[in-house]
């Protein structure tokens, strides 16, 4: 076993008692044995006439779980800016947990859950890595740790951030610094280190449509685990480099939130992507701790349905950076990263915004500009009731030259849905056609699209 230096920083104490885990491990073993009794037969059982479809069962479970557990929406760590309430709450929560010397509500106690089930499970072959257990067990681990962290910080508005290492190759600066509860001095990767983007890319993973290749099987790990997940662990190094100590490094939680987010994105892509429906997966249970330190078991079926969602920080995508004068329709094209495309399609997100700057205002006659999405042949004759119509703006003459105006035009709701529908291999292609109406000339300096 690779032994990296165990953290010398106050780790918050020892593990939950082994007796407590063994007690629950007995229940776990029973659950696992029951799940494994006839998995193949159950998987092939015909649907009972008049009974619910699989989709209905999944939806019912999601509703039931959502009623039991409060929803969380996790954000990119880049939004945890210095001095922000989010970052302050996160540091306070971690500091409080570090100050607890023992027990499952302590920082060390939470980390020890990972050590036990990843390196020395009390039940034979109950490892939660290198199999289809990996994603769903860690989802539950994150969620219940987050509940404990919220209680420690004294606010339910705190949620664990995610480190989007596909975009941000450096370990977030918020996690370094002497005296910073988010720091871990054992790391091999320093503030100037950079991950290899070839190994943190997720487009190939998102293009997979089968769970075995993406998330693993009963006997093999999937690509997300052995690809970017393991790579980041090994590259950060120190406590992060070994199962036994990984949970001690605060970056572990941000890292795993991103792993969970990739799973969330993968499922959101649809196209046949789905979690296992084998009872051998669904019925497995593992123990965790609630905010009172009481142990309980949760099934993988319920853990997979925990109400966790992710938002993406707004990103500005450049469409055109040169001065243009349009008398005829013109098309600009943009490639939107998959995670941003899927985030934009979430029903509670504001629509993308077209940002036009450096506009040359007309002095004598007004001009209306219609914007069409994925309709490159649009003309002044194309109706605004066409499904591709995404928005418009009108420039009213001012009577004198007035350049440099900026406008922000929200694009209509079908644009995010187009982005989602068009996602392939990690990105979504979108074209916007600007059509000056009436043959009037319209000029601008740059076009950008802001996507949330």
């Amino acid at each position: 076993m690779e032994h990296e230096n165990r953290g010398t920083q106050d780790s918050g104490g020892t593990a939950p008692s082994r007796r407590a885990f063994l007690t629950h491990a007995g229940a776990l073993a029973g659950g696992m044995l029951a799940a494994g009794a006839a998995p193949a037969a159950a998987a092939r059982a015909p649907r009972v006439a008049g009974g619910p479809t699989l989709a209905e069962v999944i939806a019912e479970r999601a509703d039931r779980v959502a009623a039991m557990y409060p929803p969380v929406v996790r954000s990119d760590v880049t939004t945890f800016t210095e001095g922000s309430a989010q970052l302050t709450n996160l540091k306070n929560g971690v500091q409080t947990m570090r100050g607890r010397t023992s027990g499952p509500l302590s920082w060390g106690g939470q980390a020890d859950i990972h050590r036990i089930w990843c390196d020395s499970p009390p039940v034979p072959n109950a490892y939660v890595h290198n199999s289809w257990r990996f994603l769903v067990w860690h989802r539950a681990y994150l969620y219940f740790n987050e509940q404990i962290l919220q209680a420690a910080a004294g606010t339910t508005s705190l949620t664990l951030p995610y480190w989007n290492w596909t975009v941000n190759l450096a370990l977030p600066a918020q996690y370094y610094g002497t005296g910073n509860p988010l720091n871990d001095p054992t790391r091999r990767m320093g503030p100037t280190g950079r991950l290899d983007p070839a190994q943190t890319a997720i487009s190939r993973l998102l293009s997979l449509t089968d769970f075995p290749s993406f998330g693993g099987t009963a006997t093999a790990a999937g690509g997300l685990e052995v690809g970017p997940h393991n790579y980041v662990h090994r590259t950060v190094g120190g406590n992060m480099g070994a199962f036994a100590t990984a949970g001690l490094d605060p970056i572990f939680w941000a890292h795993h939130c991103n792993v969970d987010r990739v799973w969330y994105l993968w499922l959101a892509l649809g196209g046949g992507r789905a979690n296992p429906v084998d009872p051998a997966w669904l019925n497995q249970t593992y123990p965790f701790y609630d905010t009172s330190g009481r142990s309980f078991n949760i099934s993988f079926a319920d853990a997979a349905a925990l109400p966790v969602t992710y938002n993406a920080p707004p990103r500005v995508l450049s469409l055109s950076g040169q001065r243009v004068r349009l008398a005829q329709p013109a098309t600009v094209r943009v490639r939107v990263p998959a995670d941003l495309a899927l985030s934009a399609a979430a029903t509670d997100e504001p629509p993308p915004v077209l940002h036009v700057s450096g506009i040359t205002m007309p002095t004598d006659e007004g001009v209306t500009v219609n914007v069409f999405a994925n309709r490159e042949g649009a003309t002044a004759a194309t109706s605004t009731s066409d499904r591709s119509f995404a928005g418009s703006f009108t420039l009213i003459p001012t009577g004198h030259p007035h350049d440099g105006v900026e406008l922000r035009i929200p694009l209509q709701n079908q644009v995010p849905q187009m982005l989602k529908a068009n996602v392939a291999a990690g990105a979504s292609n979108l074209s916007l056609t600007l059509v000056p109406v009436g043959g009037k000339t319209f000029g601008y300096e740059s076009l950008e699209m802001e996507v949330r």
Partner: protein
Amino acid sequence: MPNHPTTPQPPGLRARPVLCAVGCLAAALACAPAARAVGGPSAECPITPAAVSTPLVVAVSTAPGVLGTRPVTLGPCRLPAERVRALTSGASGPPVLFVEGIRAPRGADVLVFVDRPGATAATPTTDAGYAGAFTLLGGAQAAEGVSLRVPLGPALAAALRDDGAFTLTLVAAGPQAQTGDAGVSFQRVSLELR
């Protein structure tokens, strides 16, 4: 290389027959290449046809191997013509490398290259032959043996020759590669195409 009490230790690179019927390790063997059937699958890499819910499986190597400081090149294998077309046209999903029975008690970082028998730990991941990578954390489970799947990038499709033949080279990289024996063994390597 730790001895495992219940599983035969994988043979070293030198303990191989001269004629390779299956899974020829080209790195360090005096191995006469088997005759290659023209226009059909290579005899060295048996192919299991796809079924309704299972992928087509190309057995790249059915013989155990050891990944030390020297890369291991597997193949050549050949894909059926229709699969070549599907890959090169982008009609199919990414090919998936399935590696079974890996033991890496100290962990491992492994890079995968297509048609790069000379690849080393110094070969960058920006190389056109780079197809993917996988990493293992060490520990008890990795010492017992794990299996994994990793999707490969467009390097395979780009490298497929007219006869659909290709080789795969596994390279131990990362800190382990600098300390000598990477201590990684594997039982089987196959390619899954959906």
